[in-house]
């Protein structure tokens, strides 16, 4: 799959090198956005911007160094449109500074330095001068070479560096150029008073045939090579001002902006919806009330199930309340009568309780019977009222029936 990386020329990009407190990505973006708003001449909504932290270096007094780059949105859009017209679907539009930074990190043989240093890609006609700190490019300038007056060129070079940092803070100047630029290099070292180190292309940078690149080729095509290296090796971390991903985010942002463009229309719509909702709500309540009132009008209480079964249910409640369970009572009694007892009569009545008369061959059996009757739930207040062990063992035993309700207005009294 082909990946297309493009870079905006350095003059179109505004770069800022700020020390920011350590914060998560979202918070950092908020802080950068506020600072950009205050620092740049254009309103932030007319800018496309991105930032990148300096990793690997110790945090500064406030936090970490952050490189922020911004470009006018219409300029980026115009360049993207031009590339699209040329048939290029750009994956990422980055900056020339990022391209030179990638060249510094991956394209030349040198020992990396955590401090500030300069790099010059020198050809016979033009010098590309970049100032880097901790490997991140803070600025890129191009200056025309005055072949007959190298002093002027060196002065411009000094100005380009000092526009970003004081010269005394620059640790060294990396020089990349063909042997033809040797006098210029010597002149620059002399004029700037800096240690100038000649750097060679990285051994892995070769031509199609496998021949190693020369310093002259690296100087001539350095930014393009750097851009390719950024695309290959740093596509996730490189600053992206536009591109497929960015387009998607921008499209979303544009949609939100277009939605928020007519607040009065939205408010009117919301009020309209509220009114419609109220109308529906009122109509629903009215309809429901009407339905229920119709139902209530047609409701005939005398024809209801409750009215139809009410007499039977009252009869059921009466029977449950007042009917004496004769069979159950006698069955419970018979269950506990011991063999030594012969019952001569049983009287059971709602008002006069249970009276048992009989004879017992064993006098203790009467009391056992009384005890056994007490243990059940049906009989209460069981009393062996009379026992005559000396006169044939006859006895009388009375008990209350626990589940029998008496009638408040008396039933006919008297014997049967």
């Amino acid at each position, binding site marked *: 799959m082909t990946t297309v990386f493009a870079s905006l020329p350095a003059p179109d990009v505004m770069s800022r090198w700020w020390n920011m407190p350590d914060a998560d990505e979202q918070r950092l973006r908020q802080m950068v956005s506020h600072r950009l708003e205050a620092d740049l001449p254009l309103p932030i909504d007319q800018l496309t911007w991105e930032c990148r932290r300096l990793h690997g270096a110790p945090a500064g007094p406030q936090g970490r160094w952050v490189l922020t780059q911004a470009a006018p949105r219409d300029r980026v859009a115009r360049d993207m449109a031009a590339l699209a017209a040329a048939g290029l679907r750009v994956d990422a539009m980055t900056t020339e500074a990022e391209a030179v930074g990638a060249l510094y990190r991956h394209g030349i043989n040198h020992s990396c330095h955590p401090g500030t240093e300069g790099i010059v890609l020198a050809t016979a006609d033009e010098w590309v001068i970049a100032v880097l700190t901790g490997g991140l490019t803070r600025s890129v300038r191009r200056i025309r070479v005055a072949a007959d007056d190298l002093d002027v060129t060196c002065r411009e070079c000094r100005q380009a560096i000092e526009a970003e940092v004081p010269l005394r803070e620059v640790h060294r100047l990396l020089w990349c150029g063909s042997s033809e630029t040797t006098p210029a290099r010597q002149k620059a070292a002399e004029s700037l008073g800096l240690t100038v180190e000649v750097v060679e292309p990285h051994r892995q940078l070769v031509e199609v045939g496998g021949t190693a690149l020369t310093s002259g080729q690296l100087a001539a095509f350095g930014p393009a090579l750097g851009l390719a290296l950024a695309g290959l090796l740093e596509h996730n971390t490189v600053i992206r001002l536009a591109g497929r991903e960015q387009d998607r985010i921008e499209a979303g942002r544009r949609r939100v902006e277009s939605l928020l463009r007519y607040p009065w229309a939205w408010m009117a719509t919301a009020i309209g919806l509220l009114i419609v909702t109220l109308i529906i709500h009122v109509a629903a309540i009215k309809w429901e009330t009407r339905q229920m009132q119709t139902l209530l009008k047609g409701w005939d209480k005398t024809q*209801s*199930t*409750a009215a139809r079964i009410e007499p039977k*249910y009252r*009869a059921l409640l009466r029977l449950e309340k*007042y*009917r004496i369970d004769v069979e159950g009572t006698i069955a419970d009694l018979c269950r506990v009568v011991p063999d030594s007892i012969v019952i001569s009569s049983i009287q059971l009545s709602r008002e006069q309780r249970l009276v048992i008369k009989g004879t017992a061959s064993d006098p203790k059996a009467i009391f056992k019977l009384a005890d056994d009757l007490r243990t059940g739930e049906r009989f209460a207040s069981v009393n062996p009222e009379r026992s005559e062990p000396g006169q044939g063992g006859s006895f009388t035993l009375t008990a209350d029936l626990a589940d029998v309700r008496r009638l408040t207005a008396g039933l006919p009294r008297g014997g*049967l």
Partner: protein
Amino acid sequence: MNMSDRDRRALVLGGVAVGMIAVYLVALNPLVSRYNDMLADHEQAAAKVARILGEERKAADQARQIAEWERKAGQLSEPKPYSEQITSVSYKLVAAYQASGMQVKNSNWTHPIPWPDDRTLSLATIRIDAEADWENVFKFVAAVYRIEGVMSIDRLELAGDSKKPGPLTVKLAVSVLVRSEGDNRWAS
């Protein structure tokens, strides 16, 4: 008369305030009142419908209890007028004597007395003197409790002599609920 800006502002603000009060009194307040009335009507109707539904649910449960009772203990019915009830119950009691093999010596209805739970009803009692075997007594008791209109066996006396084997002497009082109105010969 020239008005200052301050006067004009005061007039405008006053006008707006008066207008808002007028809108509230003329339009908003009556609308809110009508809305509240409508909600009250709805709530009232909903409460009535809920009560009816509750009663129906309760009635369904009661119908189930009635069916269960009738399956076990015979038909349930409203008390009938005295003459109709005692005729019907007496007829069915005769059938029960015959089915159970009880030898009835005597049976007579007593004066109905008011039923304490409902003054439109009275309780009539039939007293029965009979002789029967132990088993037959309980066959008869079971048959009595399946007779429509019988309230309860209010008294039962069983007596026998262990020295003289023979049928038991049985005395029973069976109560029957009757409607107080009608051709009750005991009614004053």
